[in-house]
């Protein structure tokens, strides 16, 4: 099993290296996993297995569709993420929650696996045992351990490497495991490690011949003493096997990709951090009387026991600042009829406040029965969130609802509707990244770093009115839109990536419901400034300047232009003085020559020495300075703009690094999701997804408060045949 790297030192003597134990299904491995702090660390792991297999048949079978004989049964890859959460509770119990789906049959449960705990040493069980105990027929999981998806004890791992072949970073050496198989450890570079086991794997006491390759990557993270620590992470398992079956030799090839993320590594620490941020922003809001508070939603009468319903105060502006990630009050309430209602689903790092502008006007015309205020965890994998929404809809007792999803919420809505549970009859997405968001290609660190670099370049020139707003926005953006609850990453980001298994799966499914996608374009410039403070947006409260943010940025940009022009004017005056116009002589100098162009009402002295006195000199250089600062400020503001656009809308026809080229930017963005990503794909189905583009208007964050979108939405809901409020 894959806990080898976590074994104690005694197990890592030469001859009993890490992968030998990895294949032993019954090793009583004692684990001291420094990653798991009791009660406060939880892991999320997405495991995607693609298995293809071929079984030659001794007796051909007829193909029902074609009528032809089939000599080989072929199984094609069917990637379906399996989401696993793991962690240790206060009772030292390893808790595993596995969410899976097979067709329309779902199985969600909280499975507790007993472990042996002695002091800080925790013994675990084999992967086959774990999944076997759960009674989950995860056929593709037999070679993957839940512990294998966790971080491996690097110190032990490194010691094992040194023990096998000190000084050789490449091919370490092969040796036999206890079953006689060969193990080779190959290190292509410092950060990657491939462990190949020739001889196959063991599943439920049965040896499966073949070859298995485990691929690890080294990650760095802050250690408990503040130093950086390296950890090996299992990223992929490739297993090729041949098995003798009654029908013949079955050849199977399995690639299991493991995407793991940690969140809430220390809940207390994060809580303190969030509290500090909230306090600071509350102070900002109080100090700015112009920032209108977001109206709390009308009290909603719960139709179902759907968890704790907070007071309306919990949905005020301050609470809406709760960042993305787990926690936060859960609110799911219902008004209206028992069927055919409007349900709102917010996006990532958001909450019910995003619908404050739209909810009253939609509910004036339609039944707004339920709304997903806080997801339990809007950073969790999206199909996990879809299950969450589905569960709450089911609990509300409503059916045939139309889910209106903003951004990531549109993907969650689609996934929920695809379950064909009868709970959702239509989906309207607003600015949703149906084919992925470019920004999700970047880690929080990368995206924040790029923007901060650009802003830093701006800082030296930001002396003009309105320019300071840019710094304010830049200060907000990395936190609001990039910073996950800790230094780790969000599974939701991975699902929002273009070409992610989730999106591939989502867009390849038949969608048995009415659907429409509202697309939004915030315009070509300073879309990043629009993200905070769009007019009417609940997010406006985050920025005391409100809508004036965009105006201030434009003002700063314009002012830089005027300063530049004024500087050019001064330079022109300095070098063209001693001019005659309309019968009057004028000069900034002490003397002039009469050698100009006579016969005209305007002439300049061509013999005037350049900057022939201190006044001219001073004027010229003042003009130069103004021109320099003006043009530089504009250039750096362009730089900030294009940096953001590159992160969200880059033209991939161009190779990097053309960040500052205008043509590096693709067509259209709402400041966060490029237009091409917003397009509702032509997924399999019998009907059009009804794209509805709206004009240049609001940003990604302001779009849910946009009257433009409201009109598109109400019109669409009417086309869906949603009952009108009676």
């Amino acid at each position, binding site marked *: 099993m894959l806990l080898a790297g976590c074994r104690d030192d005694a197990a890592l003597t030469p001859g009993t290296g890490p992968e030998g134990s990895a294949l032993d299904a019954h090793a009583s491995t004692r684990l001291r996993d420094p990653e798991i702090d009791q009660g406060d660390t939880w892991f999320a792991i997405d495991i995607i297995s693609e298995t293809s297999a071929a079984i030659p048949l001794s007796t051909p079978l007829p193909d029902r569709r074609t009528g032809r004989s089939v000599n080989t049964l072929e199984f094609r890859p069917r990637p379906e993420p399996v989401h696993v959460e793991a962690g240790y509770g206060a009772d030292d119990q390893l808790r595993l929650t596995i969410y899976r789906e097979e067709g329309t049959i779902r199985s969600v449960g909280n499975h507790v696996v007993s472990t042996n705990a002695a002091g800080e040493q925790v013994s675990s069980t084999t992967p086959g045992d774990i999944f076997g105990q759960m009674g989950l027929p995860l056929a593709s999981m037999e070679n993957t351990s839940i512990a294998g998806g966790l971080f491996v004890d690097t110190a032990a791992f490194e010691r094992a490497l040194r023990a096998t072949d000190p000084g050789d970073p490449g091919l370490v050496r092969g040796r036999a495991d206890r079953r006689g198989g060969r193990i080779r450890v190959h290190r292509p570079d410092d950060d990657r490690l491939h462990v190949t086991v020739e001889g196959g794997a063991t599943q439920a006491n049965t040896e499966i011949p073949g070859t298995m390759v485990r691929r690890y990557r080294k990650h760095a993270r802050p250690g408990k003493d503040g130093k950086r620590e390296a950890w090996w992470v299992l990223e992929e398992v490739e297993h090729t096997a041949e098995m003798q079956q009654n029908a013949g030799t079955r050849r199977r090839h399995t690639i299991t990709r493991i995407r793991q993320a940690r969140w809430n590594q220390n809940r207390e620490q994060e809580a303190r951090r969030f509290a500090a941020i909230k306090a600071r922003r509350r102070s900002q809001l109080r100090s700015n009387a112009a920032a209108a508070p977001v109206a709390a939603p009308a009290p909603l009468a719960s139709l179902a026991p759907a968890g704790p319903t907070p007071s309306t105060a919990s949905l005020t502006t301050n609470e809406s600042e709760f960042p993305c990630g787990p926690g936060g009050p859960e609110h799911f309430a219902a008004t209206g009829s028992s069927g055919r209602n409007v349900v709102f689903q917010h996006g990532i790092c958001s909450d019910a406040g995003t619908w404050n502008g739209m909810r009253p006007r939609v509910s004036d015309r339609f039944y707004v029965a339920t709304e997903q205020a806080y997801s339990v965890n809007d950073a969790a994998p999206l199909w996990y969130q879809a299950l969450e929404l589905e569960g709450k809809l089911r609990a509300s007792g409503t059916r045939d609802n139309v889910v209106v999803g903003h951004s990531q919420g549109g993907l969650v809505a689609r996934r929920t509707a695809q379950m064909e549970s009868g709970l959702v009859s239509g989906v309207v997405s607003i600015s949703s990244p149906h084919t992925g968001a470019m920004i999700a290609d970047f880690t929080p660190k990368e995206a924040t770093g790029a923007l901060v670099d650009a802003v830093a370049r701006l800082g030296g020139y930001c002396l003009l009115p309105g320019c300071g707003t840019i710094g304010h926005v830049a200060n907000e953006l990395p936190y609001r839109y990039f910073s996950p609850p800790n230094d780790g990453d969000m599974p939701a980001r991975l699902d929002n990536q273009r070409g992610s298994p989730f999106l591939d799966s989502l867009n390849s499914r038949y969608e048995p419901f009415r659907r429409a996608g509202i697309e939004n374009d915030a315009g070509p410039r300073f879309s990043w400034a629009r993200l905070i403070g769009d007019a009417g947006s609940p997010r406006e409260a985050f920025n005391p300047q409100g809508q004036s943010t965009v105006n201030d940025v434009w*003002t700063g940009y314009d002012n830089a232009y005027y300063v530049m022009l004024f500087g050019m004017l001064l330079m022109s005056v300095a070098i063209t003085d001693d001019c005659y116009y309309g019968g009057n002589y004028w000069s900034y100098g002490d003397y002039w020559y009469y050698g100009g162009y006579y016969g005209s009402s305007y002439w300049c002295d061509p013999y005037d020495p350049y900057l022939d006195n201190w006044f001219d000199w001073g004027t010229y250089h003042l003009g130069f300075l103004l021109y320099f600062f003006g043009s530089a400020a504009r250039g750096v503001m362009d730089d900030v703009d294009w940096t953001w656009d590159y992160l969200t809308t880059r033209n991939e026809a161009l190779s990097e690094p053309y960040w500052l080229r205008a043509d590096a930017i693709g067509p259209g963005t709402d400041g966060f999701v490029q237009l091409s990503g917003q397009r509702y794909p032509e997924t399999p189905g019998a*009907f059009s997804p*009804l794209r509805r583009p709206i*004009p*240049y208007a609001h940003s990604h964050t302001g779009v849910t408060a946009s009257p433009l979108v409201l009109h598109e939405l109400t019109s669409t809901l009417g086309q*869906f*045949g949603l009952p009108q409020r009676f």
Partner: protein
Amino acid sequence: MFFTGLFRFRHTAALASASLVLGIAACEEPADIPPGGQASVGGVRVLWRTPLAEGAHLHAPTTDGARFYSEGNRRVEAYALTTGARTWSERPDFRTAPANYLVRDGKVLGVGSRAVALDVSSGREVWQFTPDTTAALAESAADERALYFGTMSHRVYALNHADGSLIWSTDVGPEWQHRGIIRGVSVSGDTVYAGVDQHVTPNGERSIGWIFALERATGRVLWSYQNGTGQDQRYIGSAPRVVGRLLLAVDYPQNTFIAVDRFTGQEVWRTAGIPSYAGADEAPVVSGDTAYAASHDQYVYAMALQTGHVLWKTRMPAGNRALAICGNRLLANYLGLAVLDRQSGQLLGTGLNDYAQNDFPTTGFAVAGNRAFVSGEKAAYGLECP
């Protein structure tokens, strides 16, 4: 603020330097019509702009040549055509706001979850009628005798618009298993036509479009035209428009325009817009031998009336919601006003699109002669076309 936004030049600093040489005037943005600002766009003059009393206006307004009637937040308002002065404002009990309004015999007629008639001069309620379920998704129609409308229960009603009494009602799909929604009703001669959306699956992802012809006097079904077989999503999204022998209709989910012979029920032509976009909200409008339509695929189309051949199409800034013929212009509402030349399709200008102030048109147009009227998020507008 210092130098605040006199103009915005949105290019690089290098280009900005060049502009100093070429002249600052070159940097000005194309002119739009701010509220109360410029008086014309594309040759269409803004006669008046009146701020709304309550809420945004969403539904198709109407005019009787003396007043302009529009509704927002279920409040119906009447404006003088020439000045835009609000003459009355009432909130009748429609329950749900109607899809459109009509004026007949001194009454403003609207059908939401209730049919209500208002006196044109005062807004006072004259009568009301409650159908079996809401008709708010269907355009209604009227002639000299009756008001016709359809419901979400696939039933077409005819009411005497003098007193609101029921003349007849007909269920056009008594055998249907799932939802059937009347999307609009029109009337011409002795026939009433209804455009229908029949769901063949519970969620309606597969649906059939129908046009039913009903005898005006009795409601008896004369013939029906079927659009689709239920293998995909099709439906007639609005009231068919009667033009000579033709009925013009729109298949909303397929973004297709359809012409049907109104005496035989046979399809004459169909013309498709750009796939995957939502289609037009309204049936094409006609002038002479040309049909004009505006779709959510962002294009305004001109089609030969007899063949459906596309004569020209012009792209708008966004998906379109309504279209009207006004003088020698076409007016398109893309949540902004676009003015096109009727002959060439050339986009002559855009306006009424102050999104920073949320001031833009949202409804269909009501046309009287060379004047058009439209309501929006913040105001009602009177327009005069050349």
